[in-house]
Structures are given as structure tokens and as C-alpha cells.
């Protein structure tokens, strides 16, 4: 693998690290299978790109994208806790609705960001090698998001959120408004995903309405991969595992695509991801059923 492909993998690993942290909040902390992310990633991209094209400062546009993502997550959670729609279905409804919303925001299927200033412009002025300049910003944002998330999940409200996902009945008995926690958690989760979308659009030179397809599976793959490499006993380790899993996943993908003798092409990526996630989710339970368990109790 060339060093450019290597740094590219780290770069997208860090970017999708934000998505992974978001997926971690919904799937792991809240135990809420949330497919909204497939819509909130392009939502973040659409909002940021459209605002930047209209002359809004890139940082403000990026923050607006996060706010839009938070709104999307809030809607999903609201459909679930207030209207009592099954969580998975609620997220699918929002995801589908966002496809139209994103087209409305952009006014067309894609918005190009060529020749305009983005959040990456100040970094580019540092005159780093071109394959590093975006990476620096991604690393900084990812680090900040990880630190903030760890701090939050160790706070009183954050612990209440974890209890909501772990044992909602007990959480309510301890005075925790579990509905409110779900609304808040889903908003934070999708804000992180929308942030990733906003940054992605700005580094790739535009937003596209179809850029979110399969993001949830990628995020889930990274969460599972992270849990496989690191024990997630503390929130610190769990958050690190998310970002680490995301980078590792991108590395594995880059390696697979580089190894031309396997015959894999870029278009096979989503199929491979889906197969990997399916395997990762079934292997732990399969292991217990096999008659010839190694070293375990009979």
C-alpha cells in the first residue's frame, strides 16, 4: 500500500470515527437501532455545502449542519417515545423523509464546492504535504469529539443516559426521564454524523444526495471491530475502540482494494461490509454452539 493510500485510509478512518461515535451512542449507549444516519450524513453535507455556497462562513455552516443533524435525530426519537413507533421503523421513516429534505435543501441532487473557502482552507495555508493537510483537521475534530463524549458520558446526565439504554425500568425508578434521555442521545448521535457529513462535503468538494447510502453499516462495522480489538470496560476504552475500529476498518478496506490479485473492486465495498458485519454479529453466538469448543467449559 502506498503512503498516500495509507494516509487516505487514516483520514477517512478519522472522519468515519465521528460516525462511529454517533452509532456507538445510538446502538450501544441507548440500545436504539438507528438508521437515521444514512439520511443525517448527507443532511449535514447538504446544509453545510448549501450555506457555504450562499456565502455563510464555513465554521457557521458546519455548526448549522450539526444542528440540522440533531434535529433529525430528535425527530426519530420523538416518533419512538411520543408516538410509540418501533425504534427501527421510526429511524427508517426519518431516513426516507430526509432524502426529500436533502433534495429540497440543495435544490438539486448535488452541490459543488469548488473555488470557495471551507473549514479546510486555513489548514491548507499551513503548507503541509497535501495528503496530511485534511488529516490534521480530521484528527483534531475527532479528538475533540472523543474527549467531549467521554466527559459527557461520565457526567451525571451521561450516566443517566447509559442507564436508560442498559435498564430503562431501573433508570425510571431512579428518577431518570428515559424519554428525555432518548431524545437527547439521538440528537447528539446524529449531530456527530451530520458533522462528519459536513466535513466530508468540504473535503471532497461537494455534497451529493446519495452519499449516505450504507453509512450505518460502515459505522456498525467499525463499532464491532473496535470492540473486538479493545476491551470496552470503561467509556474511555469504548470511545477509543470506536475511532480505532473505524481506522482499522478503512485500513482493511484499502488493503483489500489494493491487493489486486483478489479481484475486488471499489463497487464490491458495500457487499463486503455487509458480509463482515453479518459475520461479526453471528460468530460470537456460533462459537457457543459448536461442539468442539477450545479451552472452554464443556
Amino acid at each position, binding site marked *: 500500500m502506498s503512503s498516500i493510500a495509507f494516509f487516505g485510509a487514516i483520514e477517512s478512518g478519522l472522519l468515519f470515527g465521528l460516525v462511529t461515535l454517533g452509532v456507538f451512542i445510538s446502538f450501544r449507549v441507548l440500545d436504539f437501532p438507528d438508521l437515521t444516519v444514512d439520511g443525517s450524513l448527507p443532511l449535514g453535507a447538504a446544509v453545510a455545502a448549501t450555506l457555504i455556497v450562499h456565502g455563510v462562513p464555513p465554521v457557521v455552516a458546519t455548526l448549522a449542519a450539526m444542528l440540522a443533524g440533531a434535529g433529525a435525530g430528535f425527530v426519530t426519537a420523538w416518533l419512538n417515545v411520543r408516538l410509540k413507533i418501533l425504534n427501527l421503523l421510526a429511524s427508517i421513516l426519518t431516513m426516507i423523509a430526509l432524502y426529500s429534505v436533502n433534495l429540497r435543501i440543495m435544490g438539486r441532487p448535488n452541490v459543488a464546492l469548488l473555488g470557495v473557502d471551507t473549514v479546510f482552507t486555513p489548514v491548507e495555508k499551513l503548507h503541509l504535504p497535501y495528503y496530511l493537510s485534511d488529516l490534521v483537521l480530521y484528527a483534531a475534530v475527532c479528538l475533540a469529539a472523543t474527549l467531549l463524549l467521554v466527559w459527557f458520558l461520565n*457526567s*451525571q446526565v*451521561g450516566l443517566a443516559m*447509559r442507564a436508560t439504554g442498559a*435498564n430503562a425500568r*431501573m433508570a425510571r*425508578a*431512579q*428518577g*431518570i426521564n428515559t424519554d428525555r434521555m432518548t431524545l437527547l442521545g439521538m440528537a447528539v448521535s446524529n449531530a456527530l454524523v451530520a458533522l462528519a457529513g459536513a466535513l466530508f462535503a468540504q473535503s471532497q468538494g461537494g455534497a451529493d444526495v446519495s452519499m449516505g447510502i450504507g453509512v450505518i453499516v460502515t459505522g456498525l462495522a467499525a463499532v464491532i471491530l473496535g470492540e473486538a480489538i479493545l476491551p470496552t470496560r470503561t467509556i474511555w476504552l469504548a470511545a477509543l475502540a470506536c475511532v480505532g475500529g473505524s481506522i482499522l476498518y478503512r485500513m482493511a478496506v484499502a488493503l483489500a482494494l489494493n491487493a489486486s490479485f483478489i479481484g475486488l473492486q471499489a463497487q464490491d465495498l458495500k457487499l463486503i461490509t455487509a458480509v463482515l458485519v453479518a459475520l461479526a454479529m453471528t460468530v460470537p453466538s456460533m462459537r457457543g454452539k459448536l461442539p468442539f469448543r477450545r479451552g472452554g467449559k464443556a
Partner: protein
Amino acid sequence: MITLDQVRVTFNPGTAIETRALQGLDLHIPEGQFVTVIGSNGAGKSTLLGVLSGETLPQQGLVAIDAEDVTRWPTPKRAGLVARVFQDPMAGTCEALSIEENMALAAARGHRRGLGRAVAPALRGLFRERLASLGLGLENRLKDRMGLLSGGQRQAITLVMATLNPMKILLLDEHTAALDPKTAAFVMELTNDIVRRSALTTLMVTHSMRQALDYGDRTVMLHGGKVVLDVAGDDRKGLSVEDLLHMFTKVRGEQLDDDALILG
């Protein structure tokens, strides 16, 4: 002072599986009283706990804690007034969280939760001290996951968690029923110590008539969603399980046919 006045709860009203769980239940518990509640399956014990904790909102009647009408309050809103220990040791704690995190959740019961550290260093000292009083060596395992502990250890911690904050009533939902006899006896003695030491207003539901008479100040028997027997003071002293059954037969004019109650 806990007041239940003509409380009625019907599950699935107007359907084929309509269940009248509570049919005009009256119960008044003065402050500091330890009440034990018995009754056969379907008598309304669980519904009574649900009505007090807020998990079940009654269709009719009044639920009041001190002077406050809490009839329509959902569980989180009245958590500052009500502490609870569940029958299932898994239900009262989060097994994915550590012991200290579970205790921190309980330490915030009845308080506003903010963005400060949940497991503050000052709390850790308190947790260690309270756990040490159990004599189970749990004070050295604050960072262990709750899921690593046995059912008895978890129930003991849940009891400690319930008493980290003041409450108006402690609800015990057959909290020793899922434990082996030796552990059950330990948890029951522990319960009695805690309740007596702080003179907690307590309502304990139990399947065991023996337990219902051995502990507490007053025994209430539910049947068909109503209080059918209510004994306290001198009437209750020296009362045997047989006496209780006899009283029930006299009051109801029918035989009690639930073996689980007699054997307990």
C-alpha cells in the same frame, strides 16, 4: 404518611382479557410503619406496588404521599419520594455498569442531574463506607461490573442504593424470592436492620406468610384487588400461619387454595 383511597385499576378494559386488578383498595400507612403484604397470585400485590411507584396509573381513586396528591405522577417524577427493590436481582441494577456507577445513579435519585462528574471522589468514600457495612467485601470492588456479582450481592447493593437518599416509602417487591434460602435469610435480616435503623416507612410484598408475620409492624392480606385482612399490634403478636389462614377463611367464607402461601 401514605394514603390509597378507593384505588381502582383495570387492565385491558372492555376486552375479553379485562382484568380488574384493584377494586377500590383503601390503605393508609403512617410514617415509620413497616407493612408486610401477602396475597395469592392475582390478588393485586404487584399492581399495588405499581400504583405506589407510578408504573401503573389508576383509573380511579387517590394516591397521596404526605399531603401531596401523586395519583397522576409518572415514575421518574415521584422517584424522589419512592425507593424500590425489585424481585429480580437483575432488574434493580444495570449489569453493564460498575458498582460505583450504579450507586451514583441511586445517589442522584431525587436530585437534578447536571454535567458534573457522576462518580465524584466524595461519593466514592460514602459508597465504600456503606458497602463495608454489608460485610461482603464489596467495598474493594467499586469498579467491578455489576454483572459479575451474585443475585444476593446485587440485592444487598440494591438495598444500600435505595437508602442513599431520603424517601417517603420503601417498596420491597418479593425481593428475597429469587434467592437461595441462606442468601434470602441474609438479605431479609439486612432489610430489617436497615428499615429499623432509619425507621423507614416500608411496604414489603412477600409470598411467605411466615416472613410476613416475622417482620414488620402490620400485615395486610389482599384478595380480589381489595384489603381483606389487616392485623397490627397486639392482635398480630403470636399469630401463626394457621391463625392467619383461619382468619382468612372466616372473612371470605372460602378456602385459600394457594399452596405457595402456606408452604412459605
